[in-house]
């Protein structure tokens, strides 16, 4: 109840896109364009070992031979990959030893975004409130990771990808690209060649990570792509909850964001991965600018009884092309996908999931809530498949679409493949229009039109919001409201 009110107040106090500021920091750029030399430059900048450079150059070669995928229901002019920067870092110190060495402008940016970067601020919070370890990625570089010491005591490794390559090469070599192969798809392959940074997590056997881990990604520099690489390994019987948040300033040009996230879950382990994505969606009238969010996320339940849960709140980006997937390899492993995708203005989203049942008695659950407003297009695309060995596989899918106004579109494209006779797949789908009767009813009780829309939409997405960690659920609820501002009237 209070959250709804907060939402209302929040909306009133905000501009259309509140994260649309640019921080003026001296940037260290690689020259524009993409070539083997740029790949070498990136690798050298990061002091990478030779095997990593080879990995990148190999990926670059393969990428050259690939074509951009065209099957998604999104439309955009061809991207000139030579007209972008592939490396942008805050100048000088690439690996700050402590917070004091981080550029105060960057810290100010994160403060504006409301990220509890400074541990003392976190600690000064409400007594008993959960604490979050944060890895902050600014353009391409991880600037600071908090709570490292406390996590290390529990045996948890949480650091930037660059650091993991240097400090934990055996883990990186073993798991990198083991879920998303280098040439899996066009954007993932590009990422393998030029990825800049990202987060690395390893949770040892039997350890329950003592706090939520989170990463905040911020694109700041102009014309720069952002290519994060995230790798999370939950060893046998461990548990970790991870959250990523994303923002970018308003720019007239489109910026490319092509991240890859790989999750590996061994026997009896569990990863809960939540995303609150609020990249700049572009100008709502002209569609100018905004982020192209072409992301590959995949989890591999490699062990028996492994469990993974993807929860995403996608409100930003001009174009979203994203299908967080679960490979259910281990027997009795479980995959879940909870999604809220909101499009407004000229946004286009083609998002969903793949549940690939390989092991016996594997289970999956998909709850997708798509909301379209303005002149946007919102597509759910999902695959549920059971292979011959996946006897006893079960899936439940629920896809609901809500239309606001008369000029938006919603599409649902479910693919279902059962290659054995002993699986049970259920699919439910609804499409509803935010009804004027409901709006009037709420307004007659005293809610303004804007408040009425928020209340009804919050009701629509409730099933998914409750899957998010508590604090983020409140944040996400606000985001939902902001994204739909001005969508009725």
């Amino acid at each position, binding site marked *: *109840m*209070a959250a*709804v*009110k907060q939402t*209302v107040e929040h909306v009133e106090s905000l501009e259309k896109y509140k994260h649309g500021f640019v921080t003026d920091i001296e940037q260290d750029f690689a020259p524009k364009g993409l070539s083997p030399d740029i790949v070498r430059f990136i690798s050298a900048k990061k002091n990478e070992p030779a095997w990593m450079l080879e990995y990148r150059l190999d990926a670059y070669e393969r990428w050259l031979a690939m074509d951009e995928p065209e099957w998604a229901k999104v439309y955009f002019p061809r991207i000139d990959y030579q007209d972008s920067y592939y490396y942008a870092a805050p100048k000088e110190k690439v690996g700050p030893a402590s917070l004091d060495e981080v550029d105060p402008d960057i810290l100010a940016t994160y403060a504006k975004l409301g990220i509890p970067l400074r541990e003392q601020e976190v600690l000064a919070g409400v007594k008993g409130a959960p604490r979050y370890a944060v890895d902050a990625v600014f353009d391409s570089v991880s600037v600071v990771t908090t709570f490292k010491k406390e996590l290390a005591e529990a045996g948890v490794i949480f650091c930037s990808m660059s650091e993991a390559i240097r400090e934990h090469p055996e883990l990186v070599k073993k798991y990198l690209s083991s879920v998303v192969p280098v040439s899996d798809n066009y954007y993932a392959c590009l990422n393998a060649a030029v990825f800049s940074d990202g987060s690395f997590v390893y949770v040892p056997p039997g350890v329950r990570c003592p706090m939520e881990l989170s990463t905040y990604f911020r694109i700041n520099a102009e014309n720069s792509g952002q290519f994060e690489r995230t790798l999370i390994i939950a060893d046998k019987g461990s548990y970790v909850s991870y959250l990523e948040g994303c923002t970018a300033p308003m720019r007239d040009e489109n910026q490319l964001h092509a991240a890859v996230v790989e999750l590996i879950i061994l026997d009896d382990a569990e990863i809960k991965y939540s995303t609150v994505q609020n990249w700049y969606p572009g100008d709502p009238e002209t569609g100018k600018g905004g982020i192209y969010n072409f992301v590959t996320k995949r989890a591999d339940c490699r062990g028996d009884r492994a469990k993974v849960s993807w929860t995403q709140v996608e409100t930003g980006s001009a174009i979203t092309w994203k299908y967080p997937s679960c490979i259910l390899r281990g027997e009795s492993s479980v995959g879940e996908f909870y999604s809220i995708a909101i499009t407004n203005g000229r946004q286009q989203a083609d998002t969903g999931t793949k549940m690939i049942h390989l092991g016996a008695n594997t289970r999956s659950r998909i709850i997708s809530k798509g909301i379209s407003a303005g002149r946007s297009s919102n597509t759910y695309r999902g695959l549920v498949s059971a292979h011959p060995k996946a006897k006893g596989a079960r899936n439940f899918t629920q896809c609901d679409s809500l239309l606001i106004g008369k000029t938006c579109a919603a599409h649902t494209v479910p693919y279902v493949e059962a290659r054995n006779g002993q699986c049970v797949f259920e699919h439910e789908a609804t499409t509803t229009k935010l*009804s*004027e*009767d*409901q709006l*009037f*009813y*709420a*307004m*007659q*009780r*005293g*809610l*303004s*039109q804007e*408040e009425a829309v928020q*209340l*009804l939409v*919050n*009701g*629509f*997405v*409730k*099933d998914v919001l409750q899957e998010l960690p508590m604090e983020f659920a409140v944040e996400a609820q606000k985001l939902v409201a902001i994204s739909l501002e001005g969508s009725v009237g």
Partner: protein
Amino acid sequence: MLSISNLHAEIDGKAILKGLTLDVPAGEVHAIMGPNGAGKSTLSYVLTGRQGYEVSEGTATLDGEDLLSLDPSERAARGVFLSFQYPLEIPGVPALTFIRTAMNAQRKARGEAEITAPAFLKLARATAASLKIDFEMLKRALNVGFSGGEKKRMEIFQMAMLSPRFLILDETDSGLDIDALKIVADGVNAMRSPERAMLVITHYQRLLDYIKPDRVHVLADGRIAESGGPELAHELEREGYDKYARAA
């Protein structure tokens, strides 16, 4: 309290109200009766500001303040409440959340402080008990899967919680069995006060046995065709609306 003068209203260019004049002073309960299609529901929507109902002529004021230029939520904040003939289902929003959000929105519009959580719950529990509503039901999504009778009771519950000054009951008796009707009528009667006024819209006389009106008006062809005391309702029950239909 409410004063309507020469009100003309139309939907999609079709005239529905054709010069309706009506005064409901504070402290009184007035019944509006009439044949189907006479404009009874249109009157309730015009008074609450629903989109699509165009007022082409006339005025409607509450305590001297023009209602017609206000948004639906502004009218609600000034104390206008409509108990819907067909209450809407609000999926995913618990009844308590809905009412508290509405209550605070109204308070904010009036420049009052929000109700505290303990005060709200105390009020909700007491109100639910008086209307024989199971408190657990208030934690469910508003009206979703509720029976017709439960929905009507929820309307009266919301009315009691929001404590409006001017109440419009649109066919509140439809779909109610006799027990539910008594509970609803008790709830409405409990709200009668010298500071409030009510407009009870109904097709049948039955409801008026339980909610006794001070005045009864017959609405036919967009105008008040006849006004009288409670006995007029009984007369209509016996003779029907035929003579008004002919007059039109």
